């Protein structure tokens, strides 16, 4: 109909169209209505724009151009002597902004050594890394505390030993930045009480700790090495995301968990056994790779889509399977004890192809249920059958 209305039908199409309309009065009425509207609309006269319009537009464009030029000059073409006082103040201002930004941190309660967990098993939910929240008692220094600290015997000893202390503290602004070296051990801490952020780096007896915590934003990033064991953790309580990497006694755990999004990615090696798992509970997808005692399992499962792909090797026996329950297709290859099975089945299409060798006997079959054809070749105990 659209082509007829547009007048783009070929002669043959036109004949067919008219024949169709004669047999279908409903379509004829619809076509007449559309054709009438098309004719009406195409008769509408065009209006002439007012004579002053182009002049008016050019005036606006020139004005815009002038504004643009002025702005560009202001930003890019203003020459400033790099050594002028104004320029120096600009740099000082920028530096001050950086310093203030850096001073938005505060001290951190060390992440627990063993509380960061990955997943065990292919798709087990990782436990959330938990750290104690800092209380105001932990972080607020009073004047007397500061005085005590400064008068502390150890501090005095450090000063006498000419070891380095750099400390900047603003109690009103509640910002504390400190760099301290005690007997070869170094502590760097940056703390902002109001902003509730903490960045800390500490090395004690060869053990290092780096932590960044924002209490309001509820995110924690921590890297800790104690006795050769390292822990890296990133946690956002609001966003409920946890990423953790932990190596304890050569065993490593990497875990990423989003509690809201319900996805879990985990990689774990315990005693040479590796587990990689990714799970999305909402999307219901599970991908897992697991090696336990030399046996490997790779699996991808989508519960909604109902497809399962799996590759498994257990004791030299291999299984490969692809299954779509909705699509009703199953492909499988399996070798158990030297016996091999290959199968492809489409339930909707009703086609089955199978090749099987059991104890030296081979079976090949192709079957189409709809078309009702069956081709098969079978050799059992030296006998062959072809149908």
């Amino acid at each position: 109909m659209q082509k007829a209305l547009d007048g783009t039908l070929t002669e043959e199409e036109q004949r067919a169209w008219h024949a169709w309309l004669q047999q279908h009065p409903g379509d004829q009425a619809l076509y007449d209505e559309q054709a009438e509207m098309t004719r009406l609309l195409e008769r509408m006269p065009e209006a002439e724009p007012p004579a002053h319009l182009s002049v008016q537009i050019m005036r606006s464009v020139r004005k815009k151009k002038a504004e643009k030029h002025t702005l560009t000059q202001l930003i890019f073409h203003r020459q400033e002597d790099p050594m002028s006082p104004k320029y120096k103040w600009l740099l000082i201002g920028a530096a001050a902004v950086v310093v203030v930004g850096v001073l938005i941190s505060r001290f951190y309660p060390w992440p627990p050594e063993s509380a960061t967990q990955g997943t065990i098993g292919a798709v087990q939910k990782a436990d959330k890394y938990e750290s104690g929240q800092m209380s105001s008692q932990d972080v607020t220094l009073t004047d007397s505390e500061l005085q005590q600290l400064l008068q502390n015997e150890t501090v005095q000893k450090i000063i006498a030993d000419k070891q380095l202390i750099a400390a900047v503290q603003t109690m009103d602004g509640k910002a504390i930045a400190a760099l301290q070296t005690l007997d070869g051990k170094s502590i760097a801490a940056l703390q902002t009480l109001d902003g509730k952020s903490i960045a800390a780096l500490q090395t004690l007896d060869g053990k290092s700790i780096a932590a960044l915590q924002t209490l309001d934003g509820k995110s924690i990033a921590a890297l800790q090495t104690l006795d050769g064991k390292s822990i890296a953790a990133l946690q956002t309580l609001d966003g409920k995301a946890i990423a953790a990497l932990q190596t304890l006694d050569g065993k490593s755990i990497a875990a990423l968990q989003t509690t809201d999004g319900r996805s879990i990615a985990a990689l774990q090696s315990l005693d040479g056994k590796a587990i990689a798992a990714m799970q999305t509970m909402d999307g219901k997808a599970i991908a897992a790779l697991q090696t336990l005692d030399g046996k490997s399992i790779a699996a991808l499962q989508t519960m909604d889509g109902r497809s399962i792909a799996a590759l498994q090797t257990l004791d030299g026996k291999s299984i490969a399977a692809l299954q779509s329950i909705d699509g009703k297709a199953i492909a499988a290859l399996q070798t158990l004890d030297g016996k091999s099975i290959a199968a492809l089945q489409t339930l909707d299409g009703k086609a089955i192809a199978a090749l099987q060798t059991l104890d030296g006997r081979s079976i090949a079959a192709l079957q189409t249920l709809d078309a009702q054809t069956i081709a098969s070749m079978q050799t059992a105990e030296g006998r062959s059958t072809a149908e």
Partner: protein
Amino acid sequence: MSERQEDELIRRCRNGDDQAFAELIHCYQKPVYNLALRITHSGVLAEEVTQATFVKVFEKLTLYTTGLSLFSWIYRIAMNEAINEYRRGKRRSSLDETRMESAAEPSFELAEAIQEALMYLKPDDRALIILRHFQNLGYQEIAFIMDRSESRIKSQLFRARSALKLILVKLGVKNET
């Protein structure tokens, strides 16, 4: 205007040549003004939309990529400007019976009646009818301007014409074709 001439005109405009921009306005202001006039049904608003369209063309000309039709690109800006202008407080009251009855006078000129009926359509449908039937643009070009598929444009156009017919009947416009 040939593609080569168009490219040259764009190049000159980008280089800040006022004369070139004046030429561009001369080429396209009439269809832009008509589009705006049909969508807003107001000469004053149509002037404002036309002006705003060309100021935007001037500002965004560096973003225009050759290969697209300059006309379609300008039209796209104009259509959005016109629809926005229409929606910005200049929205006409929706089809109400009082207005319909009072409008149902036989003295209506056909062109006026069609323009009046157009104003009762949704701005999108109105723009579609204008682009197709007043400006005689192809479906591909309309699809680009309205950022929709050609098939959707065709079916929407079909429905828009039927709706327009119904409105014309309600306005008391007799079949004069």
